[in-house]
């Protein structure tokens, strides 16, 4: 495929052409002085000056709350009907390489033997247009977990910014290639004889020196570390169990299934939940709780990222987006724990 460009000034044209056909175009926007991925209808709504938005594509593929069935309780009978979804064709514009690498993570969980079609139907309808990072903040640690700021994993197209504020388009997947072809009046080649402006440098995210992934892997692999309660207790001491890290995390997948309604009917919903909540694993009757203290719950989350995911799937448990660090009200930094464990 020949090289193509996307000019920022043409984004509105692309959005209109795409959404005009019933599609949904999601991009980073500025909202209350914070960056969120939201549906947009013009290029003017998009913000280009961002690092990692507050929310992630997780909200799109695995909504925070969703109705899976409706039930009606009649005098003589109960009826239940599943909710079918038909998600629109969606462009997820501006996904960062860390988030894009985590698409495979959620897919692993939701297709592990049992296929959760609420997830797969949405993912199959979504085209991810990644944008390589030209800036990072102190919380970014993608390179420490094996992701790069211009990595293409999970993106269908990867855009790289030029000094002039336009994008050079790398076609990553066949689907991405078809998309470029479909809108070939917008994805244009370099103008004949026209000057191609220089590329903005990709940000350098240094690998954290104190973190040794092999050591973390070995430490977690050996069940003996479960006896080191004092160590875990110390590392997770600050955690107050708010669960904000899990809601922001693009690979956290825990959920609850609950009924909401009246005596005559209602909805069965699948809602985000978090392994950090104290009632998450409590047994009914007697209240036995296998993860009865906060450090055990925090340990579970850490192990999920660096032991369970790697053991079960080929996808990553942590992609280094840094949301859990930015959002933590007590500044419990997962990379500091990675450093602590690397020194064990």
């Amino acid at each position, binding site marked *: 495929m020949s090289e193509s460009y996307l000019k920022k000034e043409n984004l509105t044209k692309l959005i209109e052409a795409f959404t005009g056909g019933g599609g949904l175009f999601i991009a980073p926007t500025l909202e209350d002085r914070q960056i969120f991925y939201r549906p947009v209808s013009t290029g003017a709504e998009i913000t280009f000056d961002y690092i990692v938005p507050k929310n992630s594509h997780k909200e799109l593929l695995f909504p925070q709350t969703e109705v899976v069935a409706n039930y009606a309780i009649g005098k003589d009978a109960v009826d*239940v009907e599943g909710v079918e979804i038909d998600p629109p064709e969606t462009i997820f514009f501006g996904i960062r390489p860390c988030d894009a690498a985590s698409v495979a993570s959620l897919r692993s969980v*939701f297709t592990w033997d049992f296929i959760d079609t609420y997830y797969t139907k949405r993912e199959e309808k979504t085209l991810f247009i990644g944008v390589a990072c030209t800036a990072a903040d102190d919380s970014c640690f993608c390179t420490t977990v094996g992701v790069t700021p211009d990595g293409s994993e999970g993106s269908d197209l990867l855009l790289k910014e030029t000094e002039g504020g336009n994008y050079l388009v790398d076609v990553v997947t066949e689907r991405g290639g078809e998309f470029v072809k479909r809108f070939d009046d917008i994805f244009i080649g370099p103008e004949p004889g026209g000057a191609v402006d220089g590329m903005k440098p990709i940000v350098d995210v240094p690998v954290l020196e104190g973190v040794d992934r092999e050591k973390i892997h070995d430490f977690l692999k050996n069940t003996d570390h479960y006896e080191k309660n004092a160590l875990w207790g110390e590392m997770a001491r600050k955690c107050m169990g708010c669960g904000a890290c899990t809601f922001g995390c693009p690979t956290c997948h825990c959920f609850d299934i609950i009924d909401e309604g009246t005596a005559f009917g209602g909805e069965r919903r699948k809602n985000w939940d978090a392994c950090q909540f104290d009632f998450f694993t409590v047994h009914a009757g007697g209240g036995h709780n296998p993860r009865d203290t906060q450090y055990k719950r925090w340990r579970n989350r850490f192990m999920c990222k660096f032991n369970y995911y790697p053991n079960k799937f080929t996808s990553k448990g942590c992609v280094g987006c840094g949301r859990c660090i930015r959002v933590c009200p007590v500044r419990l930094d997962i990379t500091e724990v990675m450093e602590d464990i690397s020194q064990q």
Partner: protein
Amino acid sequence: MATDNLYLPDLAVIEEISDETYDTKSFKLVFKDPKMRDSFDFKAGQFGLYSAFGLGESTFCIASSPTRKGYIQCTFRNVGRVTSALADLNVGDTVGFRGPYGNWFPVDEWEGKSLLFIAGGIALPPVRSVIWNCLDMRERFMDVTIVYGARTVADLVYKDELAEWEAMPDVNLIQTVDPGGETEEWKGKVGFVPTVLEEAAPTASNTIAITCGPPIMIKFVLNALGNLGFSDDQVYTTLENKMKCGFGKCGRCNVGDIYICKEGPVYTSGEVKQMYNDF
């Protein structure tokens, strides 16, 4: 029901309710959809999610035997929101069912062996499924011994079936209640299950042991079985943890990286010993 919706339960009607104890009931459930009724199949040890619509779902094993077709049974203690809503239902009412989920007891591999079932309290239902499964093809096995105990006589479940097993000439039933739990009429033993088990001293030779009970009982039963010469691959148990989905996604029931709902709930004691001490 032709659907790809993992979360959609099938409807089942309560055909019979038995009061097992003061807080424990059994339902006999028949699927509303006649096709489902005929085609539904499961293996002993598998479980399901039972809905009381409006309150949600609760997880219990399928307590009936896969050899008995056309219906399923479940037994539950009224201890939580969903189970108390289920307990309020009457014959003819509708519940939801999702399943069967999880793995099962490898009954076929036990042919020609003696079987030793050990259960405590409300943990008899999962063992009962495999007991009837084996008794319904009794000729394939050698000796069958059942050790069942509860805190008090009032806590024993399936009293009718205990009498049935008692009367069977080719089943050796040992019943016990914890010290202080006996009544004047009690004819069984008095003592904790692991102690009674060791006193009974069943042979480990060519025998498979199947046990389920409260964690503390399982721990001591495994010790007792070790003392009797049982090796780790001769002993099967079934674990439980809080579950919501039943198929390895909701993130609750894991012990380390092992999802009890999907890779369990049935394990050999050797497998349990390899697990994190997290349940």
